[in-house]
Structures are given as structure tokens and as C-alpha cells.
């Protein structure tokens, strides 16, 4: 027995040192090709002018913390979900509520609009992702046609439809992501590799491949091949939970926001972190990030109730937006880039332009 213990320790020690030496080698390899910093390259770029963005719409109606939101492809409708189980579909341009459903669970942390605009998906502490077809028939109860699609063994943290209404990608507190067939609820592929809760995901705007990126409590951002279920790239430079990941519009990079109060940019071809967006005065975690249409601006919502706007190329902060009275929990730029919407623990959503 004592010798078993010793043997196990040797194996453990050797595993640990092997992992460390490989990590060191990897860093060396990455560093070899890192011949210039982004802000250096960006010196030639014209600085951005004075930046004014204001709240143009405030959506009031949730009775509790807003946790997640998503835009419809029609550029004006949004779906939002909250702590009290309510999921609301708004025409955010008129601020009218168009649909509402109450989930049988609290903390609905994920919601998504289907590409067709005819359905929404949501989930949270129920460990599931459910799809609700949207209908204007007054006689129909939205909850009646609910379809339970995904089943995880812990909370649902994020969900997204792929290119059609028929597939959903989910991320969960059980440490996995999964791809589901909506019609049958069949699990098409699962993605294992995060060492802890997965908190976010984003699908790549790639022309040929199917990949997506996820971020988790293991401080890692991982890129996955949807077809094989394999992790194709991993990045571990954050010092705390990765709360949000979003692809750069060209698909060659992605940004992340973390509890370590920084946002970072990772390039997929260079296979490394290429920029950090941080400031000493920013102490609270970034909960949600998204790019403007050209990728020049990065909007990030923070747990200190503010939204910081970053110049992606120069690495500097362009603006800080006040307005929310509690954490900003979710933030998405509209599909045509004319505005972005933020949701907050102060029960409201705001559209900024």
C-alpha cells in the first residue's frame, strides 16, 4: 500500500513536470513568431474621433435581474431572460412587448433567437434548453408548444442556434458543450475538455468550417470542431473565469471578457493572445463583450455597472458609458451594427446608438 502511494506520487510528479515543460515549450514556439505587437502595427491607423453614444431605448418590464439577451435577424426585435424565469420578446424599436413566457425555473441565464425569427430558445437552472415557437395567435399559449431539446447535468449558461432553426449549440455548468437536433432532441455531438463550468460560446463566422469557441471557469477559451467534437485550439491567459467570448467579424480572432477585469484578443492563425484591454481603474469583471460591425470597436459590459468601449487596434479605451444601476450582464451588437443592446441586473435593457 505504501509503495502504491509512492508509485502514484511519482506518476503524478512526472505528469506535472511533463505538462509544465510542454507548456513552456509551447510558449516558446508561440513567442518565436510573435514579431510585433498589435498597438505597434496600429500606430499608422488614424485615431478615433470623439465618441458619443447614448441610451436610445430603455426596455422596462422584467421584474428581476436581466441575465441574457439576443437580437432577431430583423435588427429590431430582441429576446431577453431574467432571474425570475420570465422570457420576453420585445420590439425594441417601439419598446412594445410582443411575447412573454414564464419558465418553470429561476435564473434563465441563456436565451437565443432563431435565425428565422419564428422561435426562441432558453434555459438556466433547469439544466435544459427549451425551444418555444413564436406565434401571434392569441388563443395559443406559448408554453403549450414548448419543446425540451437539451439536457445537461448542471445549469445552462449559453445557447445559440447554428445556421438554421434546427440545431442548437449549448454550454453548461456541467463542463461540457453540446450540439442538438431541435426536432428530436437528439444529441448530435458533445464537447468535453473544459475543466469546469462552461460559461459562454460563440459560433465562428467561417466560410467553410464549423467551429465555435467557448469560455469557462477554468480560465480557458477553447475552439472546437463541431463535426469531430475535438478541441482544436486552447488559450489560457486569463486569470479568472472567462464570462464571454465573441468572434472578430473576419473569423480570424475572438475576444474574451473575464472576471479578472480584462478583455483579451486571441488570434487563431498566430495561435496566441495578441491584445489585452485593461485599465487600472477597471476592477470588476467583464461579463459580456461584442464587436462593432467592422471589428474596430469592442463593447464590454462590466460588473461595475458600466460599459467600456475599446479601440480594438490601438488597445485604448475610447469611452465609458454610465446608465445602468447594477451589473451589466449581457451585451450584443445588433445584426446590422446600428446599435447595441445591454441587459442588467437593474431589471432593464438599454439600446445604445
Amino acid at each position, binding site marked *: 500500500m*505504501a509503495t*502504491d*502511494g509512492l508509485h502514484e506520487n511519482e506518476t*503524478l510528479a512526472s*505528469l506535472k513536470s*511533463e505538462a509544465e515543460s510542454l*507548456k513552456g*515549450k*509551447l510558449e516558446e*514556439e*508561440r513567442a518565436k*513568431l510573435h514579431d510585433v505587437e498589435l498597438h505597434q*502595427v*496600429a500606430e499608422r491607423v488614424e485615431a*478615433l474621433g470623439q465618441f458619443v*453614444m447614448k441610451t*436610445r431605448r430603455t426596455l422596462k418590464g422584467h421584474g428581476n435581474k436581466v441575465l441574457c439577451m439576443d437580437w432577431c435577424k*430583423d435588427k429590431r*426585435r430582441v429576446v431577453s431572460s431574467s432571474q425570475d424565469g420570465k422570457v420576453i420578446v420585445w*420590439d425594441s*424599436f*417601439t419598446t412594445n412587448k*410582443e411575447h412573454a413566457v414564464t419558465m418553470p425555473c429561476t*435564473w434563465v*441565464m441563456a436565451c437565443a433567437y432563431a435565425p*428565422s*425569427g419564428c422561435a426562441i430558445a432558453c434555459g438556466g437552472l433547469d439544466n435544459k434548453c427549451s425551444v418555444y415557437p413564436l406565434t401571434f395567435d392569441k388563443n395559443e399559449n406559448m408554453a403549450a408548444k414548448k419543446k425540451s431539446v437539451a439536457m445537461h447535468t*448542471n445549469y445552462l449558461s449559453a445557447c445559440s442556434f447554428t*445556421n*438554421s432553426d*434546427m440545431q442548437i449549440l449549448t454550454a453548461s*455548468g456541467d463542463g461540457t458543450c453540446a450540439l442538438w*437536433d431541435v426536432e428530436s432532441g*437528439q444529441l448530435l455531438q458533445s464537447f468535453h*475538455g473544459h*475543466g*469546469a*463550468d462552461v460559461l459562454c460560446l460563440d459560433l465562428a463566422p467561417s*466560410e467553410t468550417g464549423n467551429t465555435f469557441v467557448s469560455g469557462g*471557469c477554468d480560465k480557458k477559451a477553447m475552439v472546437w470542431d463541431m463535426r469531430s467534437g475535438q478541441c482544436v485550439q*486552447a488559450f489560457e491567459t486569463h486569470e479568472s*473565469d472567462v464570462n464571454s467570448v465573441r468572434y*472578430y467579424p473576419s473569423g*480570424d480572432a475572438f475576444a474574451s471578457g473575464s472576471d479578472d*477585469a480584462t478583455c483579451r484578443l486571441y488570434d487563431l*492563425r*498566430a*495561435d496566441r493572445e495578441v491584445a489585452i484591454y485593461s485599465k487600472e481603474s477597471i476592477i470588476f469583471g467583464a461579463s459580456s463583450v461584442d464587436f*462593432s460591425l*467592422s*471589428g*474596430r470597436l469592442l463593447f464590454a459590459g462590466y460588473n*461595475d455597472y458600466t460599459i467600456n468601449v475599446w479601440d*480594438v*487596434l490601438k488597445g485604448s479605451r475610447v469611452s465609458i458609458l454610465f446608465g445602468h*444601476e447594477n451589473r451589466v450582464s449581457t451585451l450584443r*451588437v445588433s445584426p446590422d451594427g*446600428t446599435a*447595441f443592446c445591454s441587459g442588467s441586473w437593474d431589471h432593464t435593457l438599454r439600446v445604445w*446608438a
Partner: protein
Amino acid sequence: MATVAGCTPHGRSSRTQRPHLSKMERVIVSMQDPDQGVKMRSQRLLITAIPHAVAGETRGHPGGAGRRGLRPLRLSRAGRDVVEWLVQKFCISEEEALHLGTLLAQHGYIYPLHESRDLTLRPDETPYRFQTPYFWTSTLWPAAELDYAIYLAKKNIQKQGALVDYEKEHYTQLHKKINHAWDLVVMQAREQLRAAKQRRKGDRLVISCQEQTYWLVNRPPPGVPNILEQGPERGSYNSSRVQMIERFRKALGRNRVKSSVCLEAYLKFSSQHGPHDPILSGCLPSNPWITDDVTYWAMNAPKVAAPTKLRVERWSFSFRELLDDPVGRGHFMDFLQKEFSAENLSFWEACEELRFGGQAQVPALVDAVYQQFLAPGAARWVNIDSRTMEWTLEGMRQPHRYVLDAAQLHIYMLMKKDSYPRFLKSDIYKGLLEEAVIPLETKRRAFPFLRKPLHSSPSPVLQSTPEEPAVTSTPAGGNGKQ
């Protein structure tokens, strides 16, 4: 089985609890630095102005003001100075400094000596003190009901009417809940009050402020955000070393591109797309969110008959941009038809449908694609190389949604490298570019009386086929409803 302490087959690292708290504490410590910290004021305060103080009592104290009721509190800082310090230290605006300072107060790290129930930072002469580390939020001691009951009881005993509404409510509730232990509560409260009387007035005052701040954080008044709330619990990191090693090995084998090349690509992308970014460059005729005028959306509807110039330009940025736009794709299809290669695009579309379609449709779709595009003598046979064809046909024996991937990629590349560049040089495209509309800018004040009332536009749900009404724009722009 004997295990050495801490060693498990998996590497286990504990979660850093709330990193923002330790960061705030570093700021707080810097603020108290004798040289670099917030400047101290020697402040004299009327003791009667401070809660819990009893008027008129002056015991002998060193460095006293020599006047009744006044005592210098050297260890406080004026709110104004705190703001100024933050502005200087972090190079931020006053607004941001005030916001940050208020967060520090909300988290109980500093508290005001006047109106001490309101944990915000006031940019004036209001004196603030730093909370004792004993009560720092990062200790995350669970604030027990018993302790709260004792605290409220103390307040109640000391001064009638000291409890405010929400505290009275809590007090009543606790009285009911721990009724069986109420004697203990009162006894403890009395004991703590008695012990406090042994201290100097100034210290007693400070300690009671500290305690009050602690409870304001742990039992916030109604309407004040509970800064302790974090949402559903997150798990702690548990990694498999074996998996990690495998990942590192794979990563070492990757091909990497030089940073200079990758980063240049961002510059190119940003400069190309900059004018198309409404937030960066504005949009014509105007941004609907700013002017409440939806013309921009009408003119850029998915299937509009007369696309704008910017939109047609985007089709030249990349093949993907062209395909992603239904209008662009439609014109490309027309072009392919002229070149007798439209089956390529149709094949690609069918493959997309398979990849993203329902699981149940897979076998039928695969078969349909085979019949239409791949079978010998098929009506719309696509020209893929023999190896890919062989591979594909082999895979189709057991059809799955990715079985056409290789063939799809081949055709996609064919279109991208061959047909697409020709399209961009074609008369069709050039004509579209020339005809394309450039809307005139519409400023809100230009149409003061023609402002459209806000009403819902049709939801996608109502339309069975997403057809937008064709909007014909004259080069003069506007919504045509003059």
C-alpha cells in the same frame, strides 16, 4: 489508500473568490499610504452630529479641542479628496472617479461619518473613514441571523427609535424566528453595550460606525443592490493532466502564422469595413435608433430590389459576404446561369441544407442530392475531382450530415477562385454598382412634421415566406411619402 496531502490524479486549483474584492483592497491600502495616499484632514466634528453619540460628554482626552463637544478625527478623509486622489491615481474623469469611489463605499470599504446609512461617495467635505479589515467584505463571513439580531437589539436598546422601517421589520421577523433564543440575544446585546462603554467615546463611535457599515453591506436596505449576490454557484477547476499534455502536444505540432501577418489583416479588415460600420461611420439616410426613422432598414431589407451602393460594394470584399446576402447571392446565381455553372451554387446550397437541417431529414436529403447532382447522368451534375467523388460516394453508403463536406468544399473553392472573381469583373456586377443607390442624409430636424409614429413593423413570425415589399428609392432618397 495512502495519499499525500493535496495530491489527486487531477490537478486541483481553488477558485479565486471574487478577484474584484482583493483589487479594491489594494486601492484602499494605497489610499491610506502616509505619503502617496489620500490627504488627511484634521477635522473637528460636533459629536452630536454623529449617530450614537451622546451630547455633552467629554472625558479627558489628549489633543482635545479644548471645547465641549468637539473632537478632532484625524483619520478621516474628505470625499472631495478621495475623488481627487482617484482621478490622479488612475487618470480618469471625475465622473468615473465618483463612480469607482461609490463602489468602494457600496462594498463597505469606506463609509461616511455624516449620514452614515448612505454608502455613496460624496465629492464634498463629508468625512470618510476606512473600514477595519476585520469587517472587510472579502472575509465573506456568513452574516448570521443571530449576529444581526444582536446588532439590531443593541441599537434598539441604546436609543428608542434608532431602527428604521426595514430594520424594524427584520427585527420583528427575527424575534419570531429565534424566539427561543431571544433571551440570549438581549443578554449578548446588553453585554456588548456594557463592554463598549469601557472604551473612549471616539473609539466607541468608530466601532459602531464600522459595525453599521458591515450590516449595511450584508443586509442592504430595500432599493440598494446587494453587492454580495453573485448568481448561481460556479464549480471549481478540475483538470486532467493527461488531457492537458495531449493538448499541448497537439498544439506544438500546429502551423502558426507570424504575428505581423495576422495583425496586418486586422488593419486591412477594419479599414475596408470601417465605412460600413454604422456606429463608427454613421449610416445613410440616418440611424433609425437616433432619428426614429426606419428608412435605413427599409432600404437595406434582405430582399430589396435596389440595393445601396455600400451593400453592393461589400459583395466584392469576400465571397462569403456575397453569399451571405440574399440579393447578392441572387445576382451571382444569374451570372452563373449565363456561364452554365449554376448547378455549383445549387449544390452548395443543398449541402448547407443538409449540414444544418433536421436529423430526420438527413437520409432523404443525401439521396436527393445524389440523384440531382452526383449520380452519373444526373440532371445537374457537378464537376468534382474523381478522388473526392469516390470518397463521397463511399461515405454515402452510411449517410450522415457531414458526408458531403469534401464535395461541398471542392465546389465552394471552385466558385470562390474561379466564378467569383469573374463575377466581380462582369458587366452584371459593374452595372449593379453603377445603379446602386446612395441615400441622402436625413437629419431629424429636416422632417419635423413628417416624423413617423412609432409602430411595430411586421414580425418575421407573421410572414410565411420572408418577402419584404420592394422599395424603390429614387436617388434623392427619403421615404417617398412626401
